[in-house]
């Protein structure tokens, strides 16, 4: 998968400034190439728009305006970035072990659903908000962890390809939610759209004061930082990266490969479940079909753009959240379908993966004296 051996800024002990600069120049490859890929994707998309008789200049200015231009659009962007950070972590953590998990959507939906269900008896019993939210949080996170943990276990103990299994599990998760939301757990008070019973205004999570964004965003950022520390500064992370680099070497070293895989998958699922918790507790207020809004799939792109680095995920999620937020404005002003953003994202993804071929080939980023 992605190049695991990232240059995570271990400062040069000896050699001073020149060596630090040299290190910086070499590690800048991991920033320059993805940015270059984004620019190329933008150019190809401009040609695409041009061929359709639309103005690329207008598109990109609307993209800017709708995503980052005003305080309101920033708010909109950050609200979308919050679940993207968490679903991208769901891809990035297993990726360090060489697993491609694309079932974050299912873990998000199922986590959100079980969280909403857990709230029902407590809400009916008149429990205080902290109890309701606490129960929801635990249920959502645990559900997500188990759901993706199963994928990891299937991978390790049965040798089942995790990419296919996770996507299948995603469809199953959405079907489970629909089954209950349309049937046994349907709220009779809401005849128009099948949903579970609302958790109630009083139990909703509020906004971060002064930011206009719910608490999912700061929590997501903190989780991203914690996971960066876990993956880069702990024995667990080291063992996980060794496993991702070479499973046989990891086994020869006596590393518990199975445990590492299942744990990493469970952590990944927990992140997606957490995203689901915030979608219910801070935005929707109940579980219904609109939870499957594609955050899990955009999260895959976020993780790949960030090169599976948990900290890099934060700015990339904000960037893609901005693109998604601008979708509505572009749709209205340019009369283009809502799938426009999807086309742009898909194109970015393809070009980004093509750009992987450039790593190690550009002389500028090589160490001095390296004449391969």
């Amino acid at each position, binding site marked *: *998968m992605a190049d695991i051996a990232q240059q995570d800024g271990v400062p040069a002990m000896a050699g001073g400034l020149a060596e630090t600069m040299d290190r910086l120049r070499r590690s800048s490859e991991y920033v320059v190439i993805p940015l270059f890929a984004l620019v190329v994707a933008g150019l190809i998309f401009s040609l695409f728009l041009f061929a359709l008789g639309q103005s690329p200049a207008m598109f990109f200015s609307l993209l800017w305006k709708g995503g980052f231009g005003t305080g309101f659009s920033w708010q909109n962007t950050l609200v979308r970035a919050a679940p993207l950070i968490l679903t991208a972590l769901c891809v990035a953590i297993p990726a360090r072990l060489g697993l491609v998990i694309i079932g974050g959507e299912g873990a998000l939906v199922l986590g959100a659903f079980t969280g909403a269900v857990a709230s029902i008896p407590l809400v009916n019993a008149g429990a205080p908000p902290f109890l309701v939210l606490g129960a929801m949080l635990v249920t959502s996170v645990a559900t997500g962890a188990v759901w993706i943990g199963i994928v990891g276990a299937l991978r390790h103990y049965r040798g089942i390809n995790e990419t296919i299994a996770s996507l299948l599990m995603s469809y199953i998760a959405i*079907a489970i939610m629909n*089954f209950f939301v349309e*049937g046994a757990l349907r709220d009779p008070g809401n005849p128009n759209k099948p949903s579970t019973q609302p958790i109630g205004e009083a139990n909703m999570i509020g906004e971060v004061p002064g930011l206009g964004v719910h608490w999912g965003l700061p929590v997501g950022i903190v989780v991203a930082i914690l996971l960066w520390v876990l993956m880069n500064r702990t024995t667990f992370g080291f063992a996980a990266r060794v496993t991702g680099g070479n499973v046989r070497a990891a086994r020869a070293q006596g590393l518990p490969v199975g445990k590492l895989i299942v744990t990493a998958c469970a952590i990944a699922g927990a992140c997606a479940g957490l995203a689901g918790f915030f979608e219910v507790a801070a935005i929707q207020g109940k579980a219904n079909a609109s939870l499957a809004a594609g955050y899990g799939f955009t999260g895959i792109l976020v993780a790949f753009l960030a090169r599976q680095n948990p900290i890099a995920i934060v700015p990339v999620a904000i960037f893609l959240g901005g693109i998604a937020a601008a979708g509505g404005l572009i749709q209205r002003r340019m009369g283009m379908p809502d*799938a426009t953003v999807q*086309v*742009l994202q*898909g194109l970015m993804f393809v070009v980004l993966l093509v750009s*992987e071929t450039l790593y190690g080939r550009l002389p500028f980023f090589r160490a001095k004296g390296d004449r391969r």
Partner: protein
Amino acid sequence: MNETDIGFWGVPLAMFAGAIRVSTPFLFVSLGECLTEKSGRINLGLEGTLVFGAMAGYAVAYLSGSPWLGVLAAGISGCFFGALHGYICKLPKVNDIAIGIAMMLFGTGLAFFFGKPFIQPQAPHLPSISLGGWSSLPQVQSALEINPLFFIGVLLAVVMWWAFKNTRWGLIVRMTGDSAAAARAMGYSVDLVRFLATTVGGFFAGVGGAFLSLYYPGAWSEGLSSGQGLMAVALVIFARWNPLACFGAALLFGAAGALGPALQSVGITQGYYFFNAAPYLLTLFIMIASVSPKRSLKGAPGELSITK
């Protein structure tokens, strides 16, 4: 109680008819995937190809008035996606699974983008062949209305099975899939063989998509495909890369997919959404039952990243 009411016999009958109807796209996509995987590469993007093929087929059929032209257009559009995948994968350090995911998102996005104006209009359907004239029961007659694409798919499976064994081309594809070094030593271009195999595989997947939009369910909508393209990948593993087994597996998947609607047709609507999940559960259980971490699978192409 009238004479044409066949009660719960309607369930197996509807499942049989449904299996044939629902299995056709599975059959085409899995044959395409089988060809690609035999050459040593995996294309997870066939889901996107399928959706785009469904859209392109429907649009062309609507604009030209000919459903068969639509099928052709769907196949050609599938070729483009396959060719793109095949070309990108030959670049060094590019991962075929990741590209597949990207192509899945890209293909679906493009299909939704261009498909917006075609959601409302009604395109001409593919004609079907009636084989039920001998029965007086309307249920049997409607169950035996079979689309010619089904027969083409069956024929294709047989031809592919035969060709893999008995032709020079089949041997080249299998050799490339089993050992790139051997193919290179024999003077064949591994990249070219895989490129062509992925392109032709894309054609089949596109045709499978056209079946969805032009016959059953028979209209273009954004929720048309629900992972058939991806399930086909699992199906090929289950079928052990044997085109004839792909046909059997596709029928099995078709029957699982037809379970929900079949039960609904006799009035059991309870758990409709649950039965909708049947094909996914079946795929998962089949993979659990048929894959083992200890040994490599019989018939698996040696170069395939997914089985390594």
